């Protein structure tokens, strides 16, 4: 009985990381450490010239806790690196739900041999297509489904209220004041991130909830525009009637 209990405890602790399953159809040398793995979103098309090296699936062991969006994407990127892939094409994304608190993804590991084609792909996908005619900047605010789903909070830019951040939501906000400022939100504690706003630029703010003493605490993170765009588009909100 004691040995069985010991096994259960040890397995429970070991299983906190996401489950990674990689299936390779081609064997390649690992990607050079300086090269980046470019991520293509679920709704975007992969270039026809890309060669598929295999697939990767990041799932939930049932005990996984460290399985936020960043962790899951980073795990998939690492698998792509090992396989020699320089592009990761997401084919499926499941947000945290009642059955699992993890992001779960499936992706194809691709290789684009021609560096110029890869550069073209990156340029075409670059979301920060700065429009100099704008007299505003765009802020994309999003929050995945997950823990603390009942807790919402107000998001401020300096003294101005921007929006209410609810579970499983995304919002596009135009900002008309430029220069250094702070994005912040507060529940039982305050979270803030500095931002230097330039007109015509796009910014992506990932919002979340982390554990608090009495109530969940806001979590704010400005993310890279390209990564933010991919992540923002994975959020499926309910359509308002």
């Amino acid at each position, binding site marked *: 009985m*004691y040995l069985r209990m010991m096994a259960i405890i040890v397995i*429970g*602790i070991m299983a*906190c990381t996401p489950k990674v399953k990689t299936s390779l159809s081609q064997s390649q*040398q*690992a990607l050079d*450490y300086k090269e980046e793995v470019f991520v293509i979103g679920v709704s975007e098309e992969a270039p026809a010239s890309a060669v598929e090296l295999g697939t990767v699936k990041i799932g939930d062991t049932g005990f996984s806790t460290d399985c936020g969006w960043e962790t899951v994407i980073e795990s998939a990127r690492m698998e792509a690196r090992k396989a020699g892939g320089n592009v990761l094409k997401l084919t499926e994304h499941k947000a945290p739900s009642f059955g699992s608190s993890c992001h779960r993804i499936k992706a194809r590991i691709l290789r684009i041999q021609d560096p110029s084609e890869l550069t073209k792909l990156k340029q075409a996908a670059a979301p920060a297509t700065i429009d100099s005619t704008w007299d505003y900047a765009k802020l994309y605010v999003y929050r995945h489904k997950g823990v603390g789903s009942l807790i919402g909070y107000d998001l401020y830019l300096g003294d101005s209220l921007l929006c209410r951040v609810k579970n499983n939501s995304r919002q596009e906000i135009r900002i008309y004041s430029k220069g250094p400022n702070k994005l912040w939100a507060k529940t039982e504690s305050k979270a803030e991130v500095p931002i230097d706003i330039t007109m015509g630029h796009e910014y992506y703010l990932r919002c979340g909830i982390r554990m608090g003493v009495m109530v969940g605490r806001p979590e704010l993170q400005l993310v890279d525009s390209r990564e933010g765009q991919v992540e923002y588009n994975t959020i499926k909100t309910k359509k308002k009637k």
Partner: protein
Amino acid sequence: MKPFYIVAILLLSGLNILRAQDLIVTSKGDSVNCLITKVSKEHIYFVYKNGEKATRTLMPADQVTYHKKKYFDHSALPAKTVQAYNDLPRFRISLQGGWSRRLAKVADVGDADLKEYIKGLKSGFHLGVDGAFFFTENYGAGLKYAYFRTSNEIGNVTVTTSTGETKTGLMQDKVNIHYFAPEFWTRYSFADDKLILLAGASIGYLRYIDNGVLVDPLTITGSTVGVGFDIGLDYMITPHFGIGANLGLIGGSIGTMKYNDGTGEREVNLNDNQRENLTRLDVSAGVRWCF
């Protein structure tokens, strides 16, 4: 050396580890200033400064000619990044105490008062100290000591001695149980290393001492092999100091007891259904030091 200085040196060395940075030399002759996060047979995983941002990447082991942790004194990566990727501290010491309850069923002794008396000996308090060294991020080993105490007494007890003499007086038990064992630990951190979930398993020495009175003083002792399990959650207030809660189970049963009534000591082998079951549940809270 005073304990204060020892603690100060350990804390400072811990801070230094947080700021140090590692070196990888590639087969092409490149030197990479980085933070090595994992080394496996096939790959070496690391974080390095790529322009303005920290990038996680890897390199096949056959492309690495040399690597050394903490090669540089200072990190080129932002302190927050280093902290986020850095290992948890290797050493953990915890001091705890709390409520305990022995789980063995009370034998059917017939007398209701005696049964109540024995029931009164089931609950008590415990104090403990654990020290562990984590040889990897998630696995470690160390030593555990736990002390349990409970007591009860009842007056006007009449007993008949082996010589047929009848005596009336106090019946008292002061039960002390010591558990000393090597312990294997696994741990997992989340919430930016502020919360650490731990589980431990141990096998060690369990010592039972009952300083009792049955009209006359009487000491009952015994020892056996014990097994322990722990599951706990630490909340780190600073990277090196925290508080925590723990649920522990220590089990074992004694088959041979020594009775000493002041005139002599005798050893009694207990039948299987008479063995002294020491299994207990410990619910505790305490402080933690990690460095």
